[in-house]
């Protein structure tokens, strides 16, 4: 097979890695655009239910998250396995919600404050009693726009 043995003496052309940086940069920009910064370490696991009528959150920057679920394994020694409320990165009680919401609202622009939304990320095995308490507390702190987080069901 002279066709293939013919170039035995030649060197294989070196392969240029100059464009690799460009490719990785494109990847980098993709991730920077599509993802958001994780705002806090959530200390509870929330396995949200599925729903078909879900809508996207309009303004992520005006959203405050309240997570309700069972504490993560590393926190179970302290808080047990009962349903707990996680505000920001700490496990708190219902009574702390008012302060938490007020603090978040303070940090917002005045014209954005009425559009503040509270996203309730609630584990599907949670009993409604806890959720009702949280909702009552939100009403008291006049954070009336809420969203129940859910996964889009196919």
């Amino acid at each position, binding site marked *: 097979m002279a066709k293939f043995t013919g170039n035995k003496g030649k060197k294989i052309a070196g392969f240029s890695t100059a464009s690799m940086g460009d490719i990785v940069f494109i990847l980098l920009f993709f991730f920077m655009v599509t993802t958001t910064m994780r705002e806090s370490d959530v200390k509870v696991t929330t396995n949200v239910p599925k729903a078909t009528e879900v809508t996207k959150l309009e303004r992520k920057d005006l959203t405050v998250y309240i997570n309700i679920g069972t504490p993560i394994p590393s926190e179970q020694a302290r808080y047990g396995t009962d349903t707990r409320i996680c505000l920001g990165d700490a496990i708190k009680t219902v009574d702390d919600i008012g302060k938490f919401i007020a603090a978040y609202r303070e940090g917002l622009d005045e014209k954005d404050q009425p559009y503040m939304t509270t*996203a309730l990320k609630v584990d599907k095995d949670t009993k409604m009693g806890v959720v*009702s308490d949280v909702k009552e507390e939100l009403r008291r702190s006049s954070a009336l726009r809420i969203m*129940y987080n859910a996964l889009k069901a196919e």
Partner: protein
Amino acid sequence: MAKRKKGMPELNGAGMSDISFLLLCFFLMTSSMDESMGINRILPQIPDENLPPPENKVKPHNVLSVLVDGQDRLSVNSRIVDIKDLKAVAKEFIANPANDPTKSSKKEVTEDIPNIPGIVKPVMATEAVISLQNARSTSFDVYLRVQNELTAAYSELRDEASKERFGRKFSELNEVQRDFIGKKIYAQRISESPPKDTRKRRN
């Protein structure tokens, strides 16, 4: 100073990919991709204690009372209903195509009707109110499924109405048309009362 013979020395681009890989890894670690999706609701305001409570003007036949009890059983107007049928029951109640007197009545809208093609007078709006009640031991999963079915009932009715009047889906309407369908004809009125034993404010 010695003059350079060449123009610019060539820049070595090999390290660039390493730097951007590092950056990429940083962003991968610190960011999350989960999109927040969910069901939106507006909570009712706390009534002012100094004002007298508003008179209850809703007529009993306009209220669809949905109850989820502590064992996650669903009943609609004191009849046990399967959750799969809830959407159909709610749609039937809100739209009331047969004008059944035991279901919600309609009221003619007179004020603020936008002058846009597709609207024929008289415009009839539903007066239905859905009253949702749950127990403290209802699971959130079932509660959200009920909320989901009720939302689905309203959005299907809105879609039907907008197809009939404007020939498009509700989500494709412009703002005036959407307000007309969503706030006048099929205004979503889901009223929730907290479970009876919800903790009262401690002073």
